[in-house]
């Protein structure tokens, strides 16, 4: 019997493992779950490119690796370029079927690696790019990134001066490149995540998956709440689950329970300094973004303001 929460794929969870225990993720790490699910979706014929990120550490120090597939560790800003190179080499060697997976954090995607990602996407390189987004530079000590949500605490945006400005909308940047497939995913819906990685693998060209990755130390949550918090992110519409085909066609995959954002924020220490007015502001932003998403998915009409 399965009781996977409302996932829209009913395939059983694949049992082959391409990751071996002993790796160095923290307790309750969302990023290690995303890697596990993604590799199950892609299978053994995959080459992984990992720029500087938590995963540079998690995989293990030389001469060890906890992944059962080849991985290449690269410099922070180079995931898109390095993956393009690996792709070209594999194509030259007559292995166009081998998947190339760039697996980068939000720092390596939203900030430092944005240029090389943009280049690869513009050339529509045949790669899969997964950004596991824990919303700050967690590995180096929880410094803010451009993926950090508005008003969140980090070590560089203390509670007295919390982060200014909204989280960068990376999907909008990528859809601006008109790549064939973009999607958001969440560790709380593993079967959905697997289905999206499979779809990305089946699609020729650059595909991009933005996966929310709860980080117990960085978000100041207890490790067992990791999945619960991630689930609330989607149910409060803070992190909706959707796909964008060819940069144009939006599909919302999951109807949120429409809970108030407070349910999501109040569970996390990084938001504990928020006032009622701050929460109301965030709620307003979330509702607005959701409305825009509904309009983009043509589920709600929009009016020209002329």
């Amino acid at each position, binding site marked *: *019997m*399965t*009781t*996977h*929460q*409302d996932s829209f794929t009913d395939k*059983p*969870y694949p*049992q082959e*493992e391409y*990751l*071996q*225990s*002993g*790796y*160095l*993720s923290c*307790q*309750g*790490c*969302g990023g*290690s*779950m995303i890697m*596990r699910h993604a590799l199950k979706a892609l299978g053994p014929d995959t080459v992984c490119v990992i720029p500087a990120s938590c995963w540079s550490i998690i*995989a*293990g120090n*030389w*001469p*060890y*690796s*906890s992944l*059962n597939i080849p991985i290449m560790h690269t410099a922070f800003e180079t995931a898109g370029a390095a993956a393009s190179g690996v792709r070209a080499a594999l194509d030259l060697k007559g292995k166009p079927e081998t998947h190339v997976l760039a697996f980068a954090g939000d720092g390596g995607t939203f900030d430092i690696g944005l240029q090389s990602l943009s280049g690869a996407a513009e050339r529509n390189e045949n790669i899969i790019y997964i950004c596991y987004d824990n919303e700050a530079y967690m590995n180096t000590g929880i410094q803010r990134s451009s993926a950090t949500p508005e008003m969140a605490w980090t070590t560089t945006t203390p509670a007295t001066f919390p982060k200014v400005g909204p989280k960068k909308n990376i999907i909008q940047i990528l859809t601006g490149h008109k790549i064939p497939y973009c999607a958001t995913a969440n*560790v709380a819906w*593993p079967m959905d995540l697997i289905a999206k990685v499979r779809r990305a693998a089946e699609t020729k060209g650059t595909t991009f998956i933005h996966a929310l990755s709860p980080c*117990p130390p960085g978000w100041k949550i*207890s*490790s*067992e*709440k*990791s*999945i*619960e918090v991630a*689930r609330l992110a989607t149910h409060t519409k803070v992190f909706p689950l959707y796909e964008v085909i060819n940069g144009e066609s939006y599909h919302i995959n999951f109807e949120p329970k429409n809970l108030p954002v407070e349910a999501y924020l109040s569970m996390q220490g990084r938001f504990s300094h928020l006032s009622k007015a701050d929460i109301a502001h965030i709620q307003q932003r979330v509702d607005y973004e959701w409305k825009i998403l509904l309009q983009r998915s043509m589920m709600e009409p929009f009016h020209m303001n002329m």
Partner: protein
Amino acid sequence: MSDEKPITYHNLGEMPEYVISEASMLWNKTGTWRYLAPRYLTQTPPCNQQCPAGNDVEGFIRLMEKGAIAEAAQLIREENPFPAVCGRVCYHPCETGCNRTQFDDPVAIHSLERVAAEQPFPATPPETGRPDSGKTVAIIGSGPSGLTAAYHLARMGHQPTVYEALDEPGGLLRYGIPAYRLPRNILKAEVDHITSCGVKIICGKRAGVDISWSDLNKSDAVFITVGVHRNRRLEIPAENTAGILPGLGFLESVAGGTPPRLGQHVIVIGGGNTAIDSARCALRLGSDVSIYYHRSRDEMPAFEEEVNEALKEGVKIHFLTQPVQFLTDNQHLAGIQLRETRLGSPDESGRRRPEPVPGSEFDIPVNTIITAIGETADLDWLPPEISHENNRITINLFGQTSLEKVFAGGDAALTEHNVTTAIGSGKLAACAIDAFLHNQDFTGIMPRITIGETGAVSVSRYLNHGDAHKKQGGPGKVVSFEDLNLAYFRKSARQKITTLDFNNRSSSFEEVNNGLSGEVTVIEAKRCFHCGVCTDCDNCYMFCPDIAILKKGPGEEGYRINMDYCKGCGICVNECPRAAMIMEKEQ
């Protein structure tokens, strides 16, 4: 890449020419990071604890969900030989306890039990692996308690003989509960099955009259379940007039096929199940029926469902009125004088005491009155060594009377009078008698076989036969609604049963409630949360960030935790939908 030892290079020559990994991280036992450990623990579902008959409710629903209806019926019969009876007449406290009640609606457990009972009877009762003991047990009374005890004692290898005073076995099931609630063929089939399991039933033998106590006492043990058959009297003037019928006597004559002649209008005095049953029987015999009860609806001891059905069928219920005296005309019943009451302070039963309203008396002309204000046991025949108090046989926690080899149960020994509680007391007595016959101390056994914190006992746990851990939950606590992770459950409507058309009720004793049909049964069974019992849903396995939860081999259910790598994050426990895992300090 599966070397579990770290690599040590002693010189440059041993190192690879370029930076390439040569081993996995398996040498790094991340289990050392852990300060709390997860553990699989089967906990007690509230339905199992609530069942006075000690049924493995969650267990049989789990089987029905997979379509294994015959196995489900057999699982019930490990605890209770009366699934068809209980599926119809039990007041299902299991459904009251069901955690689903706080989510949408409770699982229709009694309907599922009834469907399971529709399976053909198995050739033999569930296996116990016990050889014949050669010990005899005399059981006085063939009601649900006596027959349940006989059934289990026979399974345990003893020779029980049941003595019944009336012509047919079944006790209150046959002579108290009307056929529209429990069809006679259904009861007969289950009683016959019990007989086929090695139980001898001798009817027409009243203890103390047709068979003496000294004869009964020759058995190795005795179990007294004589029930309550003596109608409580109102103690008001003219109570012996013809036309005033005792409730249970009336039901007995209806059940025996010789109903008395009733007047066009019948008044029933009382608010318990006997009163409601009498009213609904009188209605089916063609009379208009009014019930007069001296308290309000909230204090009525009758089952709510039965009261509702009676009201729908056209029985009128007048609350807060009590009889003053019966009115006679030439030795014949002419009517009844009643008066209004109001509720005062609570009495010893916790219900508010009715107090008469002075000057509110009124008369109603009527030819037939049924009094059903309660019944007491007839214990005059008992030897003086067996003590009783307030017309109840005195028993200890596990049913033993003041005589070591004599046990008692059912309505004659309990304060709570219903079929399921009686079945539970029969089971308890069977276990206690078995322990007595084997010279074992039952005080130590009882806590081990009690379901949950206050529940009935489990025979399958007593026999410790088969996978006793999977049966009847574990020794863990009872799972509450707050323990569940509701993110994994969807709302779904409780399947409705159909009932007999009202036009057919006033003239026939045909069964009122119908059962669930085939495909609906599985839908209903699937609504079960399986509180505290693992269903292999894969959540723990999927969400483990450290791949420390592994599926057991093919053909085996469940998971195991690789403690070498479990970092103790607790996600598996938090995401378990049904509280079948716990976090704890390691020993």
